[in-house]
């Protein structure tokens, strides 16, 4: 494959720094839940642009369809009805990859180059390098990647890396009818979010705020929430997401330590052998056995 996109921050299962001299704009997608009508245009535009079509499912008693993310559905709307003090709220959240600054999927991935974090913040899956182990699913704090039943490769939102690469916005952003999804530099998105939060506070949402969880180093998909103190109201958005300590242990400390330990055992054995020499049967015992044999033949 040609080496054309060299603005890479991190590359899965790669121990040396990827080409990363050039520094571009760090991008972000901002989802203003307070302006989202749950129309699913983003869902459809995503499938259309990426040439994926989920199965035609069933109604399971809610508006959610497809009912979950899949290899053919990289973003889905999740609808939650929340009633508080006689006031009903329909909290609708576009779910999909958060493009973490510290991506658990990339950290977990054993296959070199299957997951790439570009310098602009996009975390992209490269199916041609994917081995289908599912470690990315294990590593993701947001439960986003899905393994295809057809090709056993992992798929998720690419933040339309192909569009962004040529200077366009992601398909979902462009299509969003109400402007609930915005795209730009991460800095601009934070500024815009601050305006939205101020507006929401004026309208009585005192806990309005930006969701840019620092547990994963911040994300390149952020939410403006009316109840930022309780993100779990939005169909279980995690309050303090971070790469699971188990995953950190597994792909963090354990990896080099165990490798070193194994090397230590190997080298230790070698040095033991050369310093102490082989453990052979002692001359005395050999003689004893010989003596016994002679006795026996007599």
């Amino acid at each position, binding site marked *: 494959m040609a080496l054309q996109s060299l603005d890479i921050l991190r590359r899965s299962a790669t121990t040396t720094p990827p080409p990363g001299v050039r520094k571009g704009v760090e991008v972000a997608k901002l989802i203003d839940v307070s302006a989202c009508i749950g129309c699913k245009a983003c869902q459809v535009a995503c499938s259309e642009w990426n040439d994926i079509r989920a199965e035609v499912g069933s109604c399971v008693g809610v508006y959610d369809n497809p009912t979950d993310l899949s290899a053919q559905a990289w973003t889905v709307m999740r609808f939650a009805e929340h009633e508080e003090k006689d006031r009903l709220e329909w909290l609708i959240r576009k779910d999909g990859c958060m493009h973490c600054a510290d991506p658990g999927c990339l950290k*977990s991935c054993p296959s*070199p180059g299957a997951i790439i974090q570009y310098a602009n913040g996009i975390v992209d899956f490269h199916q041609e390098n994917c081995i289908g182990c599912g470690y990315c*699913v294990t590593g993701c704090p947001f*439960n986003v990647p899905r393994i295809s039943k057809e090709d056993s490769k992992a798929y998720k939102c690419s933040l339309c890396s192909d569009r962004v690469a040529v200077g366009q916005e992601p398909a979902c952003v462009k299509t969003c009818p109400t402007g609930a999804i915005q795209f730009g530099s991460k800095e601009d998105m934070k500024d815009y979010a601050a305006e939205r939060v101020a507006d929401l506070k004026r309208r009585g949402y005192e806990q309005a705020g930006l969701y840019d969880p620092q547990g994963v180093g911040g994300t390149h998909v952020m939410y403006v929430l009316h109840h930022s103190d309780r993100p779990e109201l939005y169909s279980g958005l995690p309050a303090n997401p971070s790469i699971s300590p*188990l995953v950190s242990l*597994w792909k963090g400390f354990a990896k080099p330590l165990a490798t070193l330990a194994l090397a230590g055992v190997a080298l230790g054995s070698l040095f033991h052998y050369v310093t*102490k020499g082989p453990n052979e*049967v002692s001359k005395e015992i050999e003689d004893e056995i010989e003596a*016994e044999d002679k006795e026996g033949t007599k």
Partner: protein
Amino acid sequence: MIRDPKDLKRYNASERANHWVVGISFILLALSGLAFFHPAFFPLTQLFGGPVWARILHPYVGVLMALAFLVIFLRFKHLNRMTAADREWLAKARNMVDGNDHDMPEQGKYNGGQKVMFWVLALCMLLMTLSGVAIWRAWFGFDITVVRLGAVVHAAAGAVMIAMIMVHVYAAIWVKGTIRAMWYGTVTRAWAKQHHRGWYRQMTGK
């Protein structure tokens, strides 16, 4: 190597075959497992026809190893009960490692170190099997916390197991006259008398 009819039979053919099924499975698993564990080992996947094949084959080989190991376990577990002598042996293990095995207590078929190895490996194997099932996505879909725990346990138990096996293999190399027990099934009486005197007495009646 001179074969002597008076050599002592340490393992029969079935036991040896069983051991080597486990052994070969282990090598395959260790090579492919390490490849997924640390990128430095990733090129090892080429030995399996590429990373995707390595990912597909690894768990099936794992099932084979678990089954073969289970048989070995059942065969040898009664020989690996720890005794007071084993504990004494373990207490003096450092002398042994230093090559100074004159005043080690008398050992049966297995010494304390081997028994510890046996139980640790058995525990690891159990953990590897359970955690392996937990993270085998082709067939199972456990809760994400279980999968995450499984991944850690699998990696940790795997590392311990690999280390133990390295010790196991090295011990066999270091203690001359050992390896033939798993090739031909026999050891010399001298070897037995030196390293496993209890067993030597039991076998020879002396």
